[in-house]
C-alpha cells in the first residue's frame, strides 16, 4: 500500500469537521511543534524532508524558509497561495474542499516555524464555497484553542485570515498575489527584493502553495528523514496529481514520486487507461504552461528507459525531449485531439490572463493567439509557423514574471513536436476547418 501523506483520511465521513479530523490524529503536529520543538528545529526537519514547492516551481520549501529575513520589531507573514488557476490543475481545490483542517494545521505549524503571528490563505475568488468551508474550519479550530491568543497555553498567538481573489490567474505568481492581497491590481513586482526580505506590506514574507503547507504537519509528526525516504532522489515525498482529459478515471491522485508515467496512465489504481477505443497521442504533464509531449516521449526517455513521475525524469533531455512536473496538472490527449486547436485555446488563456505590465507578454500573447486562430480557422500563411516560434522566443525570459514563459512554452513545444499538424492546417484549409477535423498523418500513437 502506497504511503498517503495528504489523502489518507480524505474519505472518512465528516473529516471536514474538527472533531472527526482530531479523532483521526489531526492537530497532533500542532501540539508537538508548539510544546516540544523550537521554530529552528521545525525548519530543519522541513529542510531534511527535501519537499519541493508544489505550486509548480519546485523550489525547496525548507530553503525558502531559511531565506526569511528576521529584523527586530518587524512582523513576518506566511501567505498560503491557494490561487490555483492553471488549466489542468485542481488538486488544491480538492484538498481544501474535503479536508480543510489539514491545511489549517499546516498553516499553524508553518507560521510557528517562521515566527508569523498573522497568516493569510489567498484563495481564488471563484472558489467562494471553499472559502466558506475554510472559514468554518478556522472558527472551529479557534474555538478549540488551536488558533487565536496563547494557543494551547504555549504563549504563541496566531490569527488566520482567508482572503478571496477577484479572478486573475496572474495572482498565482507570488508577488502579484501580494499586490492583490494589499488591495491592488495583480501586477507582479520586480525581484529582488524577494518576498523573504520585502513581501507583504514590505515585511519579510514566505509564500507557499496549499499542498506544500499541508505536508508540514506530517513532517513534524514523522520527521524530515521519514519524508525524504519516500520518493526517488531529489523528488522526495508524495505528490497530488490532477488528471484530466481522455482517460477513464479523471480525478486527483496522491502518488509516491517515482511511479512510471505509463503506470500512472494505465493502472486501475490511477487513470485507468485511455478511454475505450482510443489511443494515446500526447501529454501535458504539469499544467498548461509546461511543454506538451507526444505519447512516445511521454512514456520513455531518449535512452529508452521508462519516464517516471519525478521532477528530474519528466525534465530529462531539457525541452528538446522533456517537460516538467510543474503543478501536477496531468492532461491526456487521445487521437481525436487537434493539437493546433488546443494550442490556440491555451494561447487565448495566456493572452486573457496577461496582466499587461511587460510589452513582450502583453503584445506577444495576443500575437500568438491571433496567428494560431487564423491557422486553426483556415487562414494560415506559410510563414506563420516560423513567426510563432520567433514570437515565443522573444517573450521567453523577457518579462518580469514567468507568465511570459508559461505562454511561450506550450506554443514552442507544440510546434517542436507537432509541426506537421500546423503545416497540414496551412496546406489544407478547407479540410482542416471541417468540424472535428484532426490531422492523422504520421503521428505516433501508443
Amino acid at each position, binding site marked *: 500500500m502506497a504511503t498517503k501523506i495528504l489523502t489518507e483520511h480524505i474519505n472518512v465521513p465528516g473529516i471536514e469537521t474538527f472533531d472527526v479530523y482530531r479523532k483521526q490524529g489531526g492537530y497532533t503536529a500542532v501540539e508537538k511543534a508548539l510544546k516540544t520543538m523550537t521554530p529552528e528545529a521545525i525548519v530543519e526537519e522541513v529542510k531534511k524532508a527535501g519537499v519541493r514547492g508544489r505550486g509548480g516551481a519546485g523550489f525547496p520549501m525548507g530553503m525558502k524558509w531559511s531565506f526569511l529575513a528576521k529584523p527586530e520589531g518587524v512582523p513576518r507573514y506566511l501567505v498560503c497561495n491557494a490561487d490555483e*488557476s492553471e488549466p*489542468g*490543475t485542481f488538486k488544491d481545490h480538492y484538498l481544501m474542499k474535503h479536508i480543510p483542517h489539514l491545511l489549517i494545521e499546516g498553516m499553524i505549524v508553518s507560521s510557528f516555524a517562521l515566527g508569523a503571528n498573522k497568516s493569510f490563505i489567498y484563495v481564488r475568488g471563484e472558489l467562494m464555497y471553499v472559502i466558506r468551508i475554510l472559514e468554518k474550519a478556522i472558527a472551529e479550530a479557534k474555538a478549540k484553542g488551536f488558533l487565536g491568543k496563547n494557543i494551547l497555553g504555549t504563549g504563541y498567538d496566531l490569527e488566520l485570515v482567508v482572503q478571496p481573489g477577484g479572478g486573475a490567474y496572474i495572482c498565482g505568481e507570488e508577488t502579484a498575489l501580494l499586490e492583490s492581497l494589499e*488591495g491592488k491590481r495583480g501586477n507582479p513586482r520586480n525581484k529582488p527584493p524577494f518576498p523573504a526580505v520585502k513581501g507583504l506590506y514590505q515585511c519579510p514574507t514566505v509564500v507557499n502553495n496549499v499542498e506544500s503547507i499541508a505536508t508540514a504537519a506530517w513532517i513534524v509528526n514523522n520527521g524530515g528523514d521519514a519524508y525524504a525516504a519516500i520518493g526517488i532522489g531529489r523528488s522526495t515525498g508524495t505528490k497530488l496529481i490532477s488528471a484530466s482529459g481522455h482517460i477513464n478515471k479523471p480525478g*486527483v491522485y496522491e502518488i509516491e514520486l517515482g511511479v512510471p508515467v505509463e503506470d500512472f496512465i494505465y493502472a486501475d489504481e490511477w487513470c485507468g487507461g485511455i478511454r475505450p477505443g482510443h489511443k494515446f497521442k500526447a501529454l501535458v504533464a504539469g499544467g498548461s504552461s509546461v511543454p506538451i509531449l507526444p505519447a512516445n516521449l511521454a512514456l520513455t526517455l531518449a535512452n529508452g528507459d521508462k519516464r517516471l513521475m519525478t521532477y528530474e525524469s519528466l525534465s530529462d533531455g531539457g525541452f528538446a525531449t522533456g517537460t516538467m512536473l510543474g503543478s501536477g*496538472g496531468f*492532461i491526456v490527449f487521445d487521437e481525436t485531439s487537434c493539437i493546433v486547436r*488546443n494550442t490556440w485555446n*491555451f494561447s487565448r*488563456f495566456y493572452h486573457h490572463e496577461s496582466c499587461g505590465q511587460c510589452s513582450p507578454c502583453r503584445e506577444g500573447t495576443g500575437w500568438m493567439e491571433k496567428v494560431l486562430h487564423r491557422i486553426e480557422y483556415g487562414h494560415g500563411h506559410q510563414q506563420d509557423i516560423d513567426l510563432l516560434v520567433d514570437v515565443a522566443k522573444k517573450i521567453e525570459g523577457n518579462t518580469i514574471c514567468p507568465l511570459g514563459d508559461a505562454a511561450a512554452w506550450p506554443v514552442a513545444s507544440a510546434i517542436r513536436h507537432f509541426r506537421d499538424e500546423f503545416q497540414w492546417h496551412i496546406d489544407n484549409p478547407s479540410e482542416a476547418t471541417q468540424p472535428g477535423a484532426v490531422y492523422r498523418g504520421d503521428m505516433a500513437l501508443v
Partner: protein
Amino acid sequence: MSTTVENKPVVFTPERLTKAQEIIANYPEGRQKSALLPLLHLLQEQEGWTSPEGMDYVARLLGIQPIEVYEVATFYTMYHIDPVGKHVIEYCRTGPCCLMGGEEVYAHLKQRLGIDTGQTTVDGQFTLKEVECLAACGMGPVFQIREKYYMNLTNERVDEIIDELSK
C-alpha cells in the same frame, strides 16, 4: 462604467456593514486597503453587480480614492462592472473542459438561452459569460452560477439546470 439603470446611492445593509467592519479589522493599522477585494465581493453579493455608486461607497468606507477601486474592479474578471441578469452563468472555455466536449455543450447552452456570450436574456433571467479555467478540469465541462459549481455537463444536464432555475 456607463450604466443604463437609474443611479441610486448604495449603502450596505446593517449585517453587511458589520461584516465589512470585521473584514477591515483583519488587516494591520494603515493597511485597510487590503479589504478591497473582499468588500467588492460583498458589494456584488448585495447589488448583483459592482455599480459605480457601490464602488464610490466602498472607497469611502476604506478611506481611499474612487479611482483606486475602479482600477481594481476592472482588472479582475469576477466583478461585473455592467448590470447583469438574475443568474450569471460563467462557462469555462479552457482546454481540459473543451477536450470533454465543452465547446459543443456551450453551443447548446447559447442556443437554449437564445443569447451569445456577454448578453442577457430579454427577461433578465440569465447572463452568459465565458471564463478561464475554474479548477475543476477532471469534472469538465463545467460552469459556475454564484457560488455553485455545475460539473460533468451534457446538453441534457444543461437543460435540466436551466429549467430548474427558470421556475
